[in-house]
């Protein structure tokens, strides 16, 4: 029916759900790469929340924040994957349960 718009709480709900799914991934999976991907999922859920708030208040600051979150996520992924590669090179495993000792 024309005129139906989606309430902004629906977007927030989807963001909350995505955040929780990411949180489950971080807490329950054992592979470092999957944990990384779940963190990215959480960051994206937060991005969605920010953009929804930006529309709700009619101000662009929410979208600018998303811009910064994306830049920081890019930097974090680059460095984090470099660390992961370094760990994998010396220990041959990406399972976080196996890297609980400081010395290799």
């Amino acid at each position, binding site marked *: *029916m*024309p005129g*139906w*718009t*989606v309430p*902004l*709480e*629906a*977007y927030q*709900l*989807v963001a909350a*759900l995505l*955040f*929780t*799914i*990411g*949180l*489950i*991934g971080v*807490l*329950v*999976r054992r*592979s470092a*790469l*999957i944990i990384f*991907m*779940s963190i*990215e999922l959480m960051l*994206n859920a937060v*991005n*969605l929340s920010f*953009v*929804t708030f*930006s*529309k*709700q*208040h*009619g101000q*662009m*600051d929410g*979208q*600018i924040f998303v*811009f*910064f979150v*994306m*830049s920081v*996520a*890019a*930097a*974090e*992924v*680059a460095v984090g*994957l*470099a*660390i*992961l*590669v*370094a760990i*994998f090179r010396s220990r041959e495993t*990406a399972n976080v349960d196996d890297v609980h000792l400081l010395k290799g």
Partner: protein
Amino acid sequence: MLEPILFTLFSIIAIVFAFNVIFRRNAVHCALHLVGVLLALSGMFVLLNAAFIAVIQILIYAGAIMVLFLFVVMLLNVKGDAALLTPGGWKGFGFFFALIIFVELLYVVLSQGGTEGTPAQTTALPPGFGSPAEIGRILYTTWLFPFEVTSILLLIAVIGAVVLAKRKFA
């Protein structure tokens, strides 16, 4: 009329693919499902009048960051870990904790208490909302300092990644 259909479609895709990201055993499949989530979110950003952010999401997140993930997954040839739903260790606690967080978030989102001071959504958005011109205008005036700091952060990340990935010639 079109917006509820598109919203439902994008949110179903995002949630189903997000579940696949955490439940799959093959790391490449997880990464590809994450790319699907990012594209669905990009569609939702377009619905929320954030055109520039939507395209930047495709360009940077889906086009560069996830390609980096895929490279690392393919080069390291990571074996999948045990299936998610087998009991063991602290997994049950993880699910329970996430459920508590979700209930809290639901409360915050659905209660009216957090929305004092926000205008009703019937106010029209200014015409250039979400366009690159608006983003540029605010980014280089109000948010100039965080912008410069982020550029230094990215430089540090590049240097750090190169240093970490170099083989040490001992």
